[in-house]
């Protein structure tokens, strides 16, 4: 049954509007743990007032695997397998600080060739990780196409990593004192060991040049997009003092204008042999965080191009005991991973495994600033800000 309305008797719209402000009650919005933009299983409990967030509390632990405890019952070579799975987007680079910490306590001198191979693969892992970000971030704020380009280019790097290590995500390639022979090359004791696969240098050179071109493409496609700029410029501005106080590191810290890169200040890998820039941002907003990472792909590709021309010949592995026992001692070794500072505080009591292994991961500290940063922002900006942090839940929960 329809009611008939006499338009003559209806009051004018302008007269019906209420002049009092609408009071909205606070509402709790639960985002995640299965929301696509949370990169896994992060849960955010947001107190919202309309579209505005006034308090957000991340809830962690859905991916907690207890690696610090597990490390206490594993031997040193076994731990490499565990730490591969912390930040699975750049598995290779997780191994480096742990292996470096162990080697430091054992006072093993790693052969130069092994260091160079580590460096090349670490930079490739950085490129792969940043390509994931470059594909996923525009996707999160509404652009689908860059994802496919990014995945295509990431695949080039993963293929190269796979050709050397035999694994795409979890290479488990580093050994204490050096690196493993290339995938399928036979036992390490064999004479004339094949370490890098045939044609590796040429393929790397081609891939890196393609990737440098792809970066130009990305800069036009994403960075030149009006919608992308509107969604990211001046959104989520993170001042450098706040970033430091929360332990925010890596590209996010550099986007806030701090020119700090552990690759240039520490010597865990021979980065001082190469020329590269440390890109920084000016405003510390989402756009800068995106742009810094894009620039880092370029710089990493340049480092790889320089490194493959300079790989020295020599052994792959230093002489180490067959059963690894690390002498008593304590050290903290950190490295510049794609997500930021990753470090291992290793306490050895002379046994087959560590007495205590504290794992400092980048994403954990990075997202700890989210409650501060998300206060007062609008819900669509929340997604833009979270995406720009490029966290991986394995790296948050460990």
């Amino acid at each position, binding site marked *: 049954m329809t009611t008939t309305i006499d338009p003559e008797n209806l009051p004018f719209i302008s007269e019906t509007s209420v002049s009092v402000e609408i009071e909205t009650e606070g509402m709790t919005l639960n985002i995640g743990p299965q929301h696509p933009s949370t990169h896994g299983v992060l849960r955010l409990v947001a107190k919202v007032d309309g579209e505005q967030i006034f308090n957000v509390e991340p809830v*962690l*632990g859905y991916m907690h695997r207890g690696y*610090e*405890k*597990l490390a*206490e*019952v594993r031997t040193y070579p076994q731990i490499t397998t565990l730490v591969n799975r912390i930040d699975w987007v750049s598995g290779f680079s997780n191994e480096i600080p742990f292996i470096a910490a162990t080697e*430091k*306590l054992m006072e093993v001198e790693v052969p130069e060739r092994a260091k160079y191979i580590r460096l090349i693969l670490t930079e490739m892992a950085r490129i792969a990780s940043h390509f994931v970000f470059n594909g996923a971030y525009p996707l999160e704020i509404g652009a689908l196409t860059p994802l496919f380009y990014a995945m295509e280019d990431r695949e080039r790097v993963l293929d190269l990593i796979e050709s050397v290590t035999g694994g795409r995500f979890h290479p488990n390639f580093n050994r204490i004192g050096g690196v493993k022979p290339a995938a399928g090359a036979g036992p*390490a*004791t*064999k*004479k*004339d060991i094949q370490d890098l696969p045939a044609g590796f240098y040429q393929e790397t050179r081609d891939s890196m040049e393609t990737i440098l071109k792809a970066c130009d493409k990305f800069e036009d496609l994403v960075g030149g997009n009006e919608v992308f700029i509107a969604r990211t410029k001046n959104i989520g501005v993170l001042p*450098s*003092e706040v970033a*430091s*106080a*929360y*332990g*925010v590191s890596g590209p996010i*810290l550099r986007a806030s204008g*701090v020119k*700090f890169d*552990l690759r*240039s*200040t*520490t*010597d865990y890998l021979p980065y001082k042999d190469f020329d590269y820039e440390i890109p920084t941002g000016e405003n510390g907003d989402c756009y800068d965080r995106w742009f810094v990472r894009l620039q880092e792909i370029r710089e990493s590709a340049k480092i790889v191009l320089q490194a493959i021309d300079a790989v020295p010949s020599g*052994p792959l*592995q230093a*002489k180490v*005991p*067959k*059963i690894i*026992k690390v002498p*008593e*001692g*304590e*050290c*903290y070794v*950190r490295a510049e991973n794609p997500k930021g*500072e990753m*470090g291992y*505080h290793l*306490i050895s*009591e*002379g*046994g*087959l*495994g*560590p*007495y*205590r292994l*504290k794992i*400092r991961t980048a994403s*954990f*500290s990075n997202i*700890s600033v989210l409650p501060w940063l998300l206060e007062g922002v609008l819900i669509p900006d929340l997604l833009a800000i979270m995406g720009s942090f490029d966290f991986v839940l394995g790296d948050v*929960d460990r």
Partner: protein
Amino acid sequence: MDQSENTSLLDSLSSNFPSTTNDFDTLKIFVKEDEWVQAATKLKDEYGLSFFSWLSAVDWENDVSVGDPPKENVQPSFEILCCLSDTSDGNFVILSTTIDKTNPIINTLVNVFPGASWHEREAYEMFGISFEGHPNLIKLYLPDGFEGNPLLKSYELLTREVKPWPGEVDVEPMPESDEEIKGDDEQ
């Protein structure tokens, strides 16, 4: 880290903090429990170590149910570690203090470094250490009903109890002596 930078920082630090070690390029400062917050503030304000890297604890215990016990007999205690860094030269310092295990309580660093909040919550659930003055000292990772503090040395790893070590049957016997991997020149 560049060794020379490290040494110069060590020199200036050891005048203010008497108990300082620098083994394996890891600068470590030992302070008393009641100087904890004050020392962190001093490192931040006077030495420019404004980057809060991490905070955690170590359970020193002779009687362990996982892993190997310490080599020498230790006084059972919690060692609290906090790593601070600068954001220019790559210097870092590990601040260390020891607290009693019967009543593990220490002042919070949240007012100096807001980033300490989550790290302290993690230490709270993993070791059972209380941080006095922490605004929201609740579990971080573990579910609400979880009992126990997993990173304590007395906490057993139950997976090993209910399920044998995977691959145990095909583990080769350990060689008797520490053999060295044969180099390229041999064979």
